[in-house]
């Protein structure tokens, strides 16, 4: 068994364990930290697949950005010592049965479908290639979704600022 195979099973074990823990723990800050572990282990999977840029984006944006944002909002809205009540039994049964049935169906489909790999040479994914394809308009160019995502991010930033801003005192208006 080679080292990368061992690493893959270790990372999958971490991902599955901590994702279960993150939805079952009764302390919300712990749930956020378990989510952080899941995201870091996922970036490890990207490193194994030799997508270094994707792994770096995952680490900085997800693990660095979104988890910090979630932890800040937890600190703004909860007491640290707060514990959730246990979920209602009907909810629990519903959730578990949906998960079991759904994953059964999807896994049965996956394991019976024959995946055929294209017989081509691997393209090395380096920064020059990523930059060229992301900003080209020709074949294999992704400039349109790139522009779309930039406009979406701008709109989301403005929306977040407008929504979270404190309401102005009417009397202090000019």
């Amino acid at each position, binding site marked *: *068994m*080679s080292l*990368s*195979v061992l690493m*893959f099973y270790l990372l*999958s074990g971490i991902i599955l364990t901590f994702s*279960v823990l*993150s*939805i079952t723990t009764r302390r*919300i800050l712990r*749930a*956020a930290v378990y*989510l952080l572990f*899941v995201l870091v282990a*996922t970036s490890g*999977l*990207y490193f*194994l*697949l030799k*997508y270094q840029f*994707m792994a770096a984006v*995952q680490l900085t944006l*997800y693990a660095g950005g*979104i988890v910090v944002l*979630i932890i800040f*909002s*937890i600190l*703004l*809205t909860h007491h640290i010592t707060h514990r*959730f009540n246990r*979920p209602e039994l009907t*909810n*629990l049964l*519903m*959730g*578990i049965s*949906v*998960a079991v049935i*759904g*994953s059964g169906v*999807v*896994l049965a489909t*996956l394991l019976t479908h024959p*995946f055929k*790999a*294209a017989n*081509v040479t691997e*393209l090395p*994914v380096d920064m020059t290639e990523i930059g060229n394809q992301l900003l080209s308009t020709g074949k294999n160019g*992704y400039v349109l*979704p790139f522009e779309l*995502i930039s406009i*979406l*991010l701008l*709109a*989301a930033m403005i929306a*977040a*600022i407008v*929504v*979270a801003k404190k309401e102005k005192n009417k009397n202090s208006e000019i």
Partner: protein
Amino acid sequence: MIQGIPLEHFLIVSTIMFFIGVCGFIIRRNLITMLMAIELILNSVNINFVVFNRYLYPDQMQGHFFSLFIVGIAAAEASVAIALIINIYRNLKNIDVENVSEMKY
């Protein structure tokens, strides 16, 4: 591709992770933890995109770019959702879904 690991093993991991996220979305009653469940779901979809790209079409980069875009969309969605959650907390002092029914008629 990695020698010795079939494609299906990656897909099994991401499928189980997806349905853990769905399960968490159903059993949690708090807006922030539901947001975390959505992050789990998006993350498992990302794994699928990247793995299909690497194993089935290694001469192109569609999966790579689409998972990049999904990460961007997840960031935008999380920032707007957290702004809304903080605003709800300011008005109602509570962010459990049962109690946020002010705008129902």
